[in-house]
């Protein structure tokens, strides 16, 4: 596979990689006969970010048909660590380079990158070490949901400024006339030092507003921020395609030469009251659950009929989280009257005197502590 990206498109590629690096650490490179994709997953596998470049994006796109036929799923793929690939794109490459060329043959340990500078026709060649190839196919269709809303990137950018950097999640309550966006869930206790934000968005503020099913949907703000930041650079409008809370949501950017989609896991916050805590717990216990859901990273897990397995895994998480948080609830200060500071401090530091590990987490004690401490 050999493809050449003209210098003028380097800004798109560089910004794409910056966005991808904010989501995951491993970059999947997939080349098909008509498109080239850069994909990454976050550590808890709840976000899949994908940049698809069509052959019109390249000044030259050559792919060996025999190699394609013999490759699995008619895709030539390889995996590279983000830390190895990203540094090549620092600075304003679109001003310095004539072109950027990628060369890869299936089953090679290296991918070759050739950068041709405008200045003196200097050519720099990088031979980058690849990671073990993994086949990745996330088959969520980006237009499978019955609900569709779209707005300009500047609209979403302004919308995001209303939330603080420490807000992790957002809940949209959507009906045919408006969306109520909140950074908290109705009915949950108020976390100290948290500012609650509610924004009402009228359907008329959107470029596209087609809601077939009313729903409440809760998802992470981080991938949305990353996507909107990318979209702003190129003035692209952001489209949300989704079904209901609990099923994946696709954030899509369209352009003649490339397309971006971020697929994020969502929840319906009103099926379980401790949902907001559960989401953060999900981050703490990523691999165990994620492995069950993403066995071999096959497509089925994402399709509609298997989502029940994903929903149930979230439910399992919520149950586990509930048990863990029961202890923590003791530390939450009741709203009124406000506890005097010393009492609060004792409650907070009281846990220092508890043993560090409990049998339930560690399992059977193989060797008891030698000291009494």
């Amino acid at each position, binding site marked *: 596979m050999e493809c050449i990206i003209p210098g003028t498109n380097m800004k798109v590629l560089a910004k794409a990689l910056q966005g991808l690096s904010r989501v995951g650490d491993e970059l999947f490179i997939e080349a098909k006969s008509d498109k080239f994709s850069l994909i990454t997953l976050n550590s808890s596998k709840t976000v899949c970010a994908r940049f698809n470049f069509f052959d019109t994006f390249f000044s030259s796109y050559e792919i060996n048909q025999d190699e394609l036929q013999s490759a699995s799923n008619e895709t030539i793929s390889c995996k590279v660590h983000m*830390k*190895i690939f990203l*540094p*090549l794109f*620092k*600075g304003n490459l679109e001003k*310095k380079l004539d072109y950027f060329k990628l060369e890869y043959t299936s089953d090679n340990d*290296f991918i070759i990158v050739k*950068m041709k*500078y405008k*200045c*003196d*026709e*200097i*050519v*720099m*060649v*990088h*031979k*980058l*070490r690849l990671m073990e190839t993994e086949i990745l196919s996330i088959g969520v269709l980006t237009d499978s949901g019955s609900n569709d809303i779209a707005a300009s990137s500047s609209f979403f950018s302004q919308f995001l400024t209303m939330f603080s950097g420490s807000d992790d999640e957002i809940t949209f309550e959507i009906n045919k006339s408006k969306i109520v966006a909140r950074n908290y869930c109705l009915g949950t206790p108020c976390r100290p030092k948290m500012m609650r934000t509610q924004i009402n968005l009228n359907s008329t503020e959107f470029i596209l507003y087609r809601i077939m099913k009313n729903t409440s949907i809760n998802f992470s703000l981080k991938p949305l921020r990353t996507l909107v930041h990318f979209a702003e650079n190129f003035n692209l409008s952001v489209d949300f395609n989704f079904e209901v809370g609990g099923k994946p949501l696709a954030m899509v950017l369209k352009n003649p030469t490339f397309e971006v989609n971020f697929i994020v896991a969502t929840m319906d916050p009103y099926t379980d009251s401790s949902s907001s805590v559960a989401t953060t717990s999900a981050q703490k216990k990523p691999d165990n659950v994620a492995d069950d859901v993403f066995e071999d990273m096959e497509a089925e897990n994402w399709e509609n009929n298997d989502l029940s397995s994903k929903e149930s895994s979230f439910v399992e998480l919520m149950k586990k989280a509930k048990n863990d948080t029961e202890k923590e609830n003791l530390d939450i200060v009741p709203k009124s009257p406000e506890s005097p500071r010393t009492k609060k401090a004792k409650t907070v530091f009281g846990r220092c005197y508890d043993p560090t590990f409990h049998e339930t987490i560690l399992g059977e004690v193989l060797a008891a502590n030698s000291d009494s401490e």
Partner: protein
Amino acid sequence: MLFSAEISDFRTVHNVLRSISLKDYVILRPTEEGLKFTLEEMKSVEISAYVPRSIFSHYRIEENQDIVFKISMKVLTECLNIFGDDGNPSVKLSYKSIGDPLCLIIKHSEENITVDCEIKTMNVDDSPDVSLAEECNLNKVVVNASILTEVLQRLDNAAEELSIEINPEPPHFILTTTGIAGESKVNIPRHSDSITIFQCKEKCLWKYAFSNVRQILKVMNYASKVAILQFRLFQWETGLLGLQLVINSDDKQMYVEYYVTSLFAED
């Protein structure tokens, strides 16, 4: 008074000193031609900033004296930075006699503020003022600084080693880095606009620790031209790399020289 000098706009000198301030101590050597600042690491790396007499608005040095002393680099740069990025202060240096502190008088350009500093000086054990540039010069390539900086920064992908190859036959000038990411290589054609001087006596390929070269990249950003010199030091049989940077300050020039020993010599 052994030495006194005044510089009315020391922005460039300050920037350069700030970007080479990697070591604890700096050796100052005022000479007839100008003021030299030298930093050294374990006899394998040496950086010198050379401020010619022409940059100073006033420069007075006692004749036939070999003046050399050592001060804390951190204290020096902190004193020079006392006004931060505000305005364009002027600096007056004076060194009365051996063992005396170095006096700095820093005047703010707009406000009527003067800062008086006295920095303790120390003796220097042994540091012959050898200008390596004149010795055993094998190969010399003078390159445009902006392209060299860009190339070196792009070659740096967690790089561990840098090899510089200079050949009388094409390809003439090859830079290669190796590290955990893999390998990166660039060939700069001899007759390109970026190379102003190319002198090659014999083929040399030597390797250097990239961490040493990384140190100099910060200063290279201020330079207009870089001379890459390859030396063979016969008595030690190691290859020595010299980088001479020319830095423009208004219409005057100052220099930074950087010497690093190679990892092993190869012909």
